[in-house]
């Protein structure tokens, strides 16, 4: 198998994780950085967040957005992605 230059396949990725409303209040901040293994998914980012104490506040399957769009938990993340945990919405 050929080595593909620049594939970056072995480097970990960093994502910016954003929190809002009641979740930000519970966490005491509205943003954190996560370092994840290559190929990590939105679900993996969520699992990393769950290690924090305040995350007991999160529902079993919170909505997640990646780069401003709702995403399924198997969505694969890229370096620099913005991941957000979206509390139940209440516009209007």
């Amino acid at each position, binding site marked *: 198998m050929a080595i593909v230059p620049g594939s970056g396949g072995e480097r970990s990725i960093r994502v910016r994780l954003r929190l809002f409303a009641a979740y930000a209040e519970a966490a005491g901040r509205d943003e954190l950085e996560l370092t994840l293994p290559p190929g990590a998914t939105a679900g993996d980012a969520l699992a990393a967040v769950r290690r924090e104490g305040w995350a007991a506040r999160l529902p079993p*399957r919170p909505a997640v957005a990646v780069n401003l769009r709702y995403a399924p938990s198997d969505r694969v993340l890229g370096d620099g992605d913005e991941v957000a945990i979206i509390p139940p919405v209440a516009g209007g």
Partner: protein
Amino acid sequence: MSEVAAQALGGTVVFVGTVRRTAEDGDIHAIEYSAYRAMAETEGDRIRAEAAARWPAARIVLRHRVGLVPAGEASVAVVAAAPHRAEAFDACRFVIEQIKARVPLWKREHLASGAARWVEGVPPGGGAGGDG
């Protein structure tokens, strides 16, 4: 309404949502809206595009305030203009339902007593899934 005015459009439906003063358990002084602003804007654009696909002749404008909105003031407005009234009603209603179902906005009620509390929302179900 001038944003959607056009001379081929005969019916315009406007929805305005207003902060109610009364709740079950105490008077509301104001509601504080917060948003994931960049996503709220793109999600609003997506809703508009979906409405345009369903009602191609309709013109649609949506607006939502953020920050503190005193009771009695409007927090959200949707305008849909179309050649015929059924399309205008359907498009307007679709847009406000979608806003409430999926745009990342949250509200905190400020009561007359001085207390404040988050309003329970709905798990967003629209867009590309959201089961993460």
